[in-house]
């Protein structure tokens, strides 16, 4: 796997140089037009332009590096998922972490979206995270979900997130600069004399002006071609790595098939996060756009990826390479000297177990996911004696609520400190070192309250011990009995 990372690095450096050159030339030309010297290319404008372009890109880059992951997660409205909440998803990610030999377990997020998609973040690898939509978890079988998670894990171990984020920053800077310049030219063209006054010097040479405008139009397109070409390559490589990790290409293939046939569009689509997803969320949104600009997709056609995966006879990079060459009728994906698998890497068989799409299982999955989402929104789970689990919104405002099935009055928990935490910040962390929790019993009947971690704790009428252990955070909670009611 390491050879791939090396290869990726080298190619990425080339991409960076190309994008950077485009950025610098653009900056220089704009500077020259705005602040022309006495003779062409002698004034301060050219250096000022380069400086502004580079500083601008650096600021964007710094923001992406330090806050990018958090921004992506909050834009995507993602909820942090713990092992208790969704053991299967957690297990699958941990399995892939073991297979990939990643030192640290990535965080897992659930994106509340009916569309089927997934993405990985982690510009800093130690802050890596994998996010999947709940539509995906609900509709995919275990093997399929594993394929998807493996693909995202590959993006992390191949350092795709890092490279594509910074390439995206350069692309974004180029686009914004040229857009700003062209707009400025358009609005000031009516009053050209004013621009002359502002710059202090003479007007820029008409030929240079023309070159600058043409370049400003072409630069974003050029940059996008570089960017998309490398992004698509990385998708193939991530597929190859995913197969290498799971040794089961059929899982990923059938997951891609399901995703491709899914009519629901991703609500949280965002231009800058697009290359991170497992399939391009853009394609579904603007089908027409795809044919107009052939270079306009960050992802290769899904059909092609599926047929490569289905044609594999082994799980090694060499197998992927030969299938890739056969189907794409193109030069090799990975340079021959980089392939170090000397022996064949065998495929594995399907995991026996659940069959996806069976209605009762899907319903159950749907309910589980709904619970996670509700817990993330601060909902309280009140189990009733009759077996009903009531989900109470945090904004109810009453201290008790009747059970809709049996009519018993359920007392709302008084200890609600922890459950007001919403969003990606896990509630457990914030109260990890708090003083021992206690709860006072109100009656002799069934009672339930929420632990500080948000996990509901239920007391039966027979419960008489001094402590109860919360099943969410494993902490002991002291139960006090007021003398009068006892």
């Amino acid at each position: 796997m390491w050879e791939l990372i090396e290869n990726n690095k080298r190619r990425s450096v080339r991409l960076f140089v190309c994008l950077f050159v485009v950025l610098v030339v653009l900056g220089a030309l704009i500077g020259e037009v705005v602040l022309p010297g006495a003779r062409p290319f002698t004034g301060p404008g050219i250096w000022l332009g380069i400086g502004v372009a580079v500083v601008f890109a650096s600021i964007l880059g710094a923001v992406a590096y330090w806050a990018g992951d958090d921004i992506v997660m909050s834009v995507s409205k993602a909820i942090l998922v713990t092992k208790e909440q969704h053991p299967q998803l957690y297990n699958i990610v941990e399995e892939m972490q073991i297979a990939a030999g990643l030192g640290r377990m990535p965080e897992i997020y659930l994106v509340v979206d009916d569309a089927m998609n997934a993405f990985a973040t982690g510009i800093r690898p130690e802050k890596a995270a994998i996010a999947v939509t709940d539509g995906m978890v609900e509709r995919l079988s275990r093997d399929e979900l594993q394929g998807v998670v493996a693909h995202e894990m590959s993006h992390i171990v191949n350092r795709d997130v890092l490279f594509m984020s910074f390439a995206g920053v350069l692309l974004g800077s180029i686009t914004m600069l040229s857009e700003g310049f062209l707009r400025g030219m358009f609005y000031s063209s009516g009053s050209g004399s004013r621009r002359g006054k502002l710059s202090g010097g003479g007007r820029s040479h008409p030929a240079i002006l023309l070159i600058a405008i043409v370049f400003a139009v072409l630069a974003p397109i050029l940059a996008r071609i570089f960017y998309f070409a490398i992004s698509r390559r990385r998708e193939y490589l991530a597929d190859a790595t995913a197969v290498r990790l799971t040794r089961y290409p059929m899982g990923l293939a059938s997951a891609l098939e399901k995703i491709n046939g899914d009519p629901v569009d991703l609500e949280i689509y965002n231009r800058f996060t697009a290359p991170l997803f497992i399939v391009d969320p853009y394609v579904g949104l603007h089908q027409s756009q795809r044919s107009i600009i052939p270079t306009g997709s960050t992802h290769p056609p899904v059909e092609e990826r599926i047929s490569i995966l289905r044609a594999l006879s082994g799980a090694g990079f060499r197998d992927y390479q030969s299938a890739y060459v056969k189907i794409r009728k193109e030069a090799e994906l990975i340079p021959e000297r980089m392939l170090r698998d000397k022996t064949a890497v065998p495929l594995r068989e399907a995991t026996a177990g659940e069959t996806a799409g069976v209605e009762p299982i899907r319903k159950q999955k749907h309910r589980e996911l709904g619970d996670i989402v509700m817990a993330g929104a601060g909902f309280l789970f009140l189990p009733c004696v009759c077996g009903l689990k009531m989900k109470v919104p945090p904004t109810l405002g009453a201290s008790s609520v009747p059970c809709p099935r049996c009519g018993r009055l359920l007392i709302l928990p008084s200890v609600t400190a922890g459950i007001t935490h919403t969003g990606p910040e896990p509630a457990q962390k914030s109260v990890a070192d708090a003083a021992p929790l206690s709860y006072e019993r109100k009656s002799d009947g069934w009672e339930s309250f929420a632990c500080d971690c948000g996990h509901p704790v239920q007391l039966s009428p027979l419960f008489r011990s001094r402590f109860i252990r919360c099943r969410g955070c494993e902490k002991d909670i002291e139960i006090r009995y007021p003398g009068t009611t006892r």
Partner: protein
Amino acid sequence: MMVSVLIFIGTLLVIGIALFLAIVSIYNGLVGLRNRVKNGWSQIDVQLKRRHDLIPNLVETAKGYMQHERETFIRVTEARAKAMGAGAGSPREVGQAEGGLSDALAKFLLTVENYPELKANENFLRLQEELTSTENRIAYARQAYNDDVLQYNNKIEMFPSNIIAGMFQFLKSEFFQIENVKERETPQVKF
């Protein structure tokens, strides 16, 4: 005369230094690989332990539902004890013992098929997911370990690193296989 002797000695010196550097780099490479193999093995160990820890819970949950399957329980418990006993052994011994456990688990889970109530038990479902995941983890840890062993053993056999390996007694590592006829059929229940 004097000059040619000096040249001769100088050449010898250069060759000697080059040889020494080559030996050092090959030796360090071998040590690095050996450590990776060791680390890979300890990863497998962690997952096997996880598997062993899971079984008492599984048996405990199932017992209430399957009162007439004492033999199955005994078989699983014994296989687990044997597997735990083999924990410090060579990869082959561990593989054999774990294979026995896999067999017993497969039979156990086959019996579970006859108890729909148990299959619907929430706790049991959770344990089953854990078991599936553990089997996968073992498979992936084994995969990584065997990849490293292959690389390490190749280095030990191939020229010129085989000379260094022989000098410093780098021994070939064993591959890890869970020896079982139905080894790839991880013990799981069909819903």
